[in-house]
């Protein structure tokens, strides 16, 4: 089978699952709903794996396969900024190249595991079928996003995943907090989407196409011909507009506030949408548009700085959170910051690599936390956990692996990808020592809050109340098997991208055709400063050492001496309060934007009530008044005339009416007489 030409089918399998479960799921047994949902994703994964395998068999320069299903929009032509006439033509087309192949495997593979897990986790919940219908709709949107071959297709998927995110965050819609969180996610994402839409329009106006391949070609040709210069304002504008979109979807400063609140959704949703796949859409989009970013180093600097600041900021909040899912949420924001740091320093492959490894261990951690929550009967506060390692051993072991992976333990996935990012942040031509330093500090913080989570949840004394303690149980196989698969992945996927001093970076090699640097005529290729392997190893050792320090602090504070956190928080009271309150960002946004919007709305409401309604009511009142006069005229003059005519005719016709007796025989008699007269006339001539 030629899977390469069938990639357009991949999103359709989950779409079919969505239709089946959405329409008939209510009447289907739960097992059937689960099989349909997970099966659709499994088939999509098989097709994706087949297509990627066939893609890998092609020579490197041909690894870009576009399938045009049909011409979708063809809306005439405009004169593009290049002076050429460009047609606004959008095809319903899919593109499989190394970048989208990585994404499609991560999304379908991890998506399938999470679907399987969800059949166990959501079994007791109301609206089981609704959950899976939404989940499949999400898979459809996400696959459209990553497989679409132009910006419009990507935008459709982008909005689709936003919608599904909204629906799934608000899954427990009877809870007000869930509804509010869903609304917040939706509204915050609108801000980002405005940026993305602006960026897309600018791309079309400037490059005359929205096809990824075509835009890349136009830029390459423009650069080769010397018409496109580095740092032209328009490129910086486009890159920043796209990045605004990415900050919304991928929860970066300033639009990150929705992601922690999104934890109101069911835990598998947090794993799938708000950790492994959807939130990485921004990373994907920036990586996809890498040629534009290469033309705008200033925008890349912004990306890198925003990325590292987000990483630092979110990690600092994560240090003190007590809700197990919120720690992971801030960790996700922080890790996404790492990815943007990588993109910002031009290490696109490293960013995507971290995206992939992060998808594994963060999905694992979220699902593990879900398993803990499941065991604890929906208790999410880590202060009420402890000493769970014996009671739920599989969850404990897999989560420990995830923690080791994210903390950057040498040999596990997180180490390779994070180290690559930190090394690139330091050594690439866009990098800087400060970026590396901040990144390394974040690595230490990551290690601290993750081990804090692990110790508070699984070690120490049990702080579980007696009622719950009696019922703690390991999750069913459907939930633990995906955990184990992801744990294995979290250990081994890192070996795809070994640092240079250890072996070959297959991953970077695979992505090279997509991230090919632009060749400026005459300019010397920007060589990264050359460093020895020993230096690189030294840098890695430093970041590991910082992570170990983080671990040791967590170990001392939460494993050995449990009163240390209280003393520390008492000493730095102000900072601690600020951290617990998430640096008051939500309050700040409320004061700056939310309440101002509400004020504006209230003002407009008043304007509406007083001025607009007043005008309408005034018009109505004056109409009523003037109608009184018209009505008098109508009643006495017009009606009077009509009645007079009617009455006159009635009176005048009085004698004639008497002939209408109503007796049938009278009429018949007249008829007969008439006939006789007629016959007489015929027979005897004229009168």
């Amino acid at each position, binding site marked *: 089978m030629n899977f390469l030409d069938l990639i357009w089918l991949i999103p359709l399998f989950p779409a079919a699952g969505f239709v089946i479960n959405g329409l008939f799921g209510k009447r289907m047994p739960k097992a059937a709903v689960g099989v349909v949902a997970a099966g659709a994703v499994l088939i999509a994964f098989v097709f994706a794996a087949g297509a990627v395998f066939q893609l890998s068999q092609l020579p490197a320069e041909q690894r870009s396969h576009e399938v045009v299903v049909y011409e979708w929009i063809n809306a005439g032509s405009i004169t593009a900024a290049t002076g050429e006439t460009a047609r606004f033509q959008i095809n319903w087309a899919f593109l499989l190249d190394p970048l989208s192949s990585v994404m499609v495997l991560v999304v379908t593979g991890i998506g399938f595991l999470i679907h399987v897990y969800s059949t166990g986790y959501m079994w007791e919940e109301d609206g089981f079928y609704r959950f899976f219908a939404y989940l499949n709709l999400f898979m459809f949107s996400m696959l459209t996003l990553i497989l679409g071959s132009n910006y419009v297709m990507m935008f459709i998927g982008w909005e689709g995943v936003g919608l599904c995110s909204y629906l799934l965050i608000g899954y427990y819609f009877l809870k007000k907090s869930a509804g509010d969180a869903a609304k917040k996610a939706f509204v915050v994402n609108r801000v980002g989407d405005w940026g993305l839409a602006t960026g897309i329009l600018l791309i079309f106006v400037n490059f005359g196409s929205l096809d990824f391949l075509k835009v890349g070609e136009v830029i390459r040709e423009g650069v080769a011909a010397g018409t496109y210069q580095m740092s032209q304002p328009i490129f910086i504008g486009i890159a920043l507009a796209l990045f605004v979109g990415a900050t919304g979807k991928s929860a970066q400063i300033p639009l990150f506030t929705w992601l922690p609140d999104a934890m109101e959704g069911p835990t598998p949703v947090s794993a799938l949408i708000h950790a492994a796949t959807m939130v990485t859409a921004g990373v994907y989009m920036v990586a996809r548009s890498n040629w534009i970013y290469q033309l705008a180093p200033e925008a890349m600097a912004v990306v890198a700085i925003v990325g590292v600041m987000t990483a630092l900021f979110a990690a600092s909040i994560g240090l003190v959170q007590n809700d197990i899912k919120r720690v992971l949420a801030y960790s996700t924001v922080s890790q996404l910051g790492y990815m943007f740091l990588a993109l910002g320093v031009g290490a696109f492959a490293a960013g995507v690599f971290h995206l992939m490894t992060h998808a594994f261990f963060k999905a694992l951690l979220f699902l593990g936390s879900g398993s803990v929550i499941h065991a604890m009967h929906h208790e999410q506060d880590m202060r009420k956990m402890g000493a769970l390692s014996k009671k739920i051993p599989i969850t404990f072991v897999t989560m420990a692996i995830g923690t080791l992976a994210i903390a950057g333990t040498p040999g596990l996935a997180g180490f390779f990808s994070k180290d690559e990012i930190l090394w690139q942040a330091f050594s690439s031509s866009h990098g800087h020592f400060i970026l590396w330093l901040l990144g390394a500090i974040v690595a230490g913080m990551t290690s601290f809050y993750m081990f804090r989570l692990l110790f508070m949840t699984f070690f120490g004394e049990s702080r579980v109340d007696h009622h719950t303690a009696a019922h703690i149980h390991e999750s069913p196989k459907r939930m633990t098997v995906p955990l184990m698969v992801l744990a294995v992945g979290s250990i081994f996927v890192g070996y795809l991208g070994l640092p240079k001093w250890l072996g070959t970076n297959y991953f970077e090699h695979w992505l090279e055709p997509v991230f090919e640097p632009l060749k400026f005529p005459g300019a010397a290729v920007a060589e990264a400063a050359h460093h020895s392997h020993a230096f690189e190893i030294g840098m890695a050792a430093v970041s590991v050492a910082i992570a170990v320090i983080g671990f040791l602090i967590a170990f001392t504070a939460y494993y050995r001496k449990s009163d240390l956190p209280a003393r520390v928080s008492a000493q730095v009271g102000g900072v601690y309060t600020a951290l617990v309150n998430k640096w008051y960002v939500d309050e700040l946004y409320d004061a700056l934007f939310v309440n101002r919007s509400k004020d504006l709305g209230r003002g407009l409401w008043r304007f509406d009530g007083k001025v607009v309604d007043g005008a309408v009511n005034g018009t109505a009142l004056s109409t009523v008044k003037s109608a009184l006069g018209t009505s008098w005229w109508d009643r006495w003059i017009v009606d009077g005339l009509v009645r007079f005519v009617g009455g006159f005719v009635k009176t005048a016709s009085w004698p004639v*009416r008497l002939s*209408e007796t109503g*007796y049938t025989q009278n009429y018949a008699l007249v008829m007969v007489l008439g006939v006789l007269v007629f016959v007489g006339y015929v027979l005897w001539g004229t009168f």
Partner: protein
Amino acid sequence: MIPIAHYLFLGAALFTIGVVGVLTRKNIMVILMSIELMMNAVNINLIAFSRHLGQTSGQIFAIFVIVVAAAEAAVGLGIVIAMFRNKETMNINEIDLMKW
């Protein structure tokens, strides 16, 4: 052979009886029967002329008239029944809805 005039006189007599019946009787059923009488008077004329002129079209037309008469009887009786149900009377003078 009986001359044509005899038939025409018979027809005219029957027709006159029918007309007078329609105009003077008060019972609807009788009026309907009078109408039948008029139609059959016409039929006699048709047959007589058909024979007299040696053409069959008159006979064919008579058959048509019989068919129409049957249909008329059905509709007429239907109306009479409906009328009776509503008015509980067969007197045509009590049915004067067309009055001014």
